[in-house]
C-alpha cells in the first residue's frame, strides 16, 4: 500500500534580515491512508511551518530549501504554483487555528463555498451551491440552506470552524492538514469537532495531520505522533509507545506538565526556560539548555535512533529505563 504522504528531510528556512531562521530543519515523517498523525510541539517548534510547507503555502521570506514532499508517490517540492494550486483544496485541504479569522468577513458563506467548489471543478453555480449545502449539513450545521446566505459574523466560533471543515471536505481530499483547529474553541465544542473530524476521516479514508500542542487531544485521536522541538523531530512513533514510555527528555517534560489525577497535590512539573531563539541555537541538541540530563556529550549533533521497534528518538541520554 502506498502512503498518502511521505515527507523526507524537509527543510524550510526563512531568510530574514537578522539571519536565516531554520524553522523546519530536516523533518521526516509518513502518513498512511486514513491514518492520523499528531504533530506536537510548543509555539515556535516549526510544526505550523511544516503544515504550510505541505500545503505549498510558505510565504516569503520563507521557502523550502531542500527535502521532498511525496504526495501519493509524487514529489511536490519544486512544482509550479499552478500545480500546487490544483492540489490545494482539492486533494490536500487545510483547517486553520482561529475560526474567527479564516473566513472572509465581507463575503457570504455561499460565495466562499461556491468559489471553493468551482476552483477545481467546472460545475454550475447551482450545482456548486447544492454541494455546499450538503457539506454544511454533513458537519452538523442546522438549516444549511438558510445559513448559506449568512455572513461569518453571524456564526459562533464553533460554527465557523464547522464551516471551515465543511469547506475542507468539499472535494473529499486525500489529506487534511489541521493546524490546531480546536485550540480556540471551548472544551465541549472541541470534543464534538474532534469526534466529527475523526468519523468523517474514517468514513472517507482521508488522512490527517493534526498539529497541536495539546497532548490530550493527540492521545485520543492520532495513530502516530511526531514531537518537534526547534525545527527538528526529537521523537516519533506510535501514539501508545510515545505517550506510555517517552524516551526523549522533552517529551517526558511535556507529559509531566499535563495535570493529572494521579499526582494530585504535587506541584505541576514544568520544563524550565523558554524555547530558544531559532537564530541562535546551541551547538548540538537544541534542548540542552533546558534539559535535566544535559552534559558535554549533548554538544554533538546526533541523528534519530530506533530504540524500540517503530519508536525513534534524537537524544544522547534517552529515558531508556522506561523500556526496562
Amino acid at each position: 500500500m502506498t502512503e498518502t504522504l511521505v515527507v523526507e528531510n524537509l527543510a524550510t528556512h526563512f531568510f530574514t534580515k537578522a539571519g536565516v531562521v531554520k524553522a523546519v530543519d530536516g523533518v521526516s515523517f509518513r502518513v498512511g491512508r486514513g491514518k492520523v498523525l499528531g504533530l506536537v510541539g510548543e509555539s515556535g517548534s516549526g510544526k505550523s511551518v511544516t503544515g504550510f510547507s505541505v500545503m505549498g503555502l510558505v510565504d516569503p521570506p520563507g521557502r523550502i530549501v531542500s527535502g521532498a514532499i511525496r504526495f501519493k508517490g509524487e514529489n511536490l517540492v519544486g512544482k509550479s504554483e499552478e500545480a500546487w494550486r490544483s492540489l490545494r483544496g482539492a486533494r490536500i485541504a487545510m483547517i486553520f487555528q482561529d475560526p474567527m479569522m479564516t473566513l472572509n468577513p465581507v463575503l457570504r458563506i455561499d460565495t466562499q463555498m461556491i468559489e471553493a467548489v468551482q476552483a477545481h471543478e467546472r460545475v454550475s453555480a447551482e450545482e456548486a451551491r447544492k454541494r455546499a449545502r450538503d457539506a454544511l449539513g454533513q458537519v452538523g450545521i442546522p438549516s444549511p440552506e438558510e445559513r448559506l446566505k449568512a455572513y461569518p459574523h453571524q456564526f459562533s466560533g464553533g460554527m465557523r470552524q464547522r464551516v471551515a471543515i465543511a469547506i475542507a471536505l468539499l472535494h473529499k481530499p486525500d489529506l487534511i492538514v489541521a493546524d490546531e483547529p480546536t485550540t480556540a474553541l471551548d472544551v465541549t465544542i472541541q470534543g464534538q469537532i474532534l469526534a466529527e473530524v475523526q468519523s468523517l476521516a474514517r468514513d472517507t479514508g482521508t488522512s490527517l495531520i493534526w498539529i497541536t500542542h495539546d497532548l490530550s487531544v493527540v492521545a485520543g485521536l492520532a495513530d502516530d505522533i511526531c514531537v518537534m522541538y526547534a525545527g527538528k523531530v526529537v521523537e516519533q512513533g506510535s501514539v501508545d509507545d510515545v505517550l506510555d514510555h517517552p524516551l526523549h527528555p522533552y517529551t517526558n517534560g511535556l507529559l509531566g506538565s499535563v495535570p493529572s489525577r494521579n499526582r494530585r497535590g504535587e506541584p505541576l512539573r514544568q520544563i524550565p526556560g523558554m524555547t530558544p531563539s531559532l537564530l541562535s541555537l546551541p551547538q548540538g541538541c537544541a534542548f540542552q539548555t533546558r534539559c535535566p540530563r544535559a552534559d558535554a556529550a549533548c554538544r554533538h549533533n546526533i541523528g534519530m535512533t530506533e530504540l524500540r521497534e517503530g519508536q525513534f528518538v534524537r537524544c544522547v541520554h534517552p529515558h531508556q529505563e522506561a523500556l526496562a
Partner: protein
Amino acid sequence: MTVYLIRRLMQAGLVLAVMSVLVFLGVFAVGDPIEILISPEATQFEKEEARRALGLDLPLWQQYLVFLENAVQGDLGRSFVFNMPAIQVILMRFPATLELALVAMLWTVLFGVPLGLWAGLKPNSVSGKTIMAGSILGFSLPSFWVGLMLIMTFAVMLGWLPSTGRAEPVTMFGITSSLWTAKGWAHVMLPSVNLALGQIALVIRLTRAGVREAMLMDYVKFARAKGLTQRRVIGVHVMKNIMIPIVTVLGLELGSLIAFAVVTESIFAWPGMGKLIIDSINLLDRPIVVAYLMMTVFLVILINFAVDVLYSVLDPRVRLKDSGS
C-alpha cells in the same frame, strides 16, 4: 434605520446653523462692501442710500435674522455684483466644478487603486518603491506649481492640450456637459490631472497599506488553501476588504475637491465655483460667499451620508448594527 436617519438629519441641521453664524461673522469681519461697490466719487448720502437698499444699515444680529428668515424659505440673498439670486449664480457655475471634480475622481480611482495594489503586492520591488516615492511627490508638491509646470509642458512646449478655459457644453441624454465632446476632454485634461495628483497619492498609500495588511490575514491564506487562483484571492477577497476605507476617504475627498478646487480653477481659468468664490471675496460680494459656503457644507454633509450608506453595503457587519439600533 429610520431613527438613524432622523438623528443624522438633526445633526445636519445643527451643523448648518452653527456654520451660518460663523460664516456670517466671518464675512462681516472681512470689510465693508459699500466701499468697493460704490464709486469713490459718490456722496455720503448716496452711500447711505445704497447701504439701506442692501440692508447693511441694520445691526449685525438683525441682518442675521433677516438672512435666516429668507434662508429658511430657500432664498440665500441676491448677489451685489450680478444682481441675481446668489444661489442661481452659484448653480450656474456648479456643473463646471462638478465636471472637474468627477474627472479628477476618475483619475484617482483609475490610477490610485491599481498602483497602490501593485505597490502593496510587491513592496520590495523597484517598481513598488518607485510608486511610493512618486506618491510622496504627489503629496508634497504645491498644486499651483504643478499646475504651472503642466501648462509649461503640455500647452506651451508640446502644444498638445489647451491651457485654459472650458469647452462649450453640449446637451445629450438630458445632461449638459462639456465632456460629450473631444474638445471638452482636451480642456478638462490638465486641470483635472492637477487636481487629482494629490488624491492619487493619497489613494496609493491607502491601498498599499490596506493590501499589505490584508495579505497577512488568515482569510487570505485560507482562500489560497482552498485552491483559488491568485487573481481571485486578490480581486475578490483582498479588494472587497480594502474597499471599505478607500470608499470612505474617496467620498470625503470628493467633497473637498468640489469645495476647494479654488487654486486649480484659478490657474486654468476654469469657470467653476472656486473661481467664482475668489472673485466674490475680492469684491466683498457677501451673499455669494455666504451662499457658497452654506452650499458647500450642505454638499459635504450629503456626501458623508452617501458614504455611510455605501459603507453599510460594503461591510455586512455594519448592517447588523443598524438593524439592532
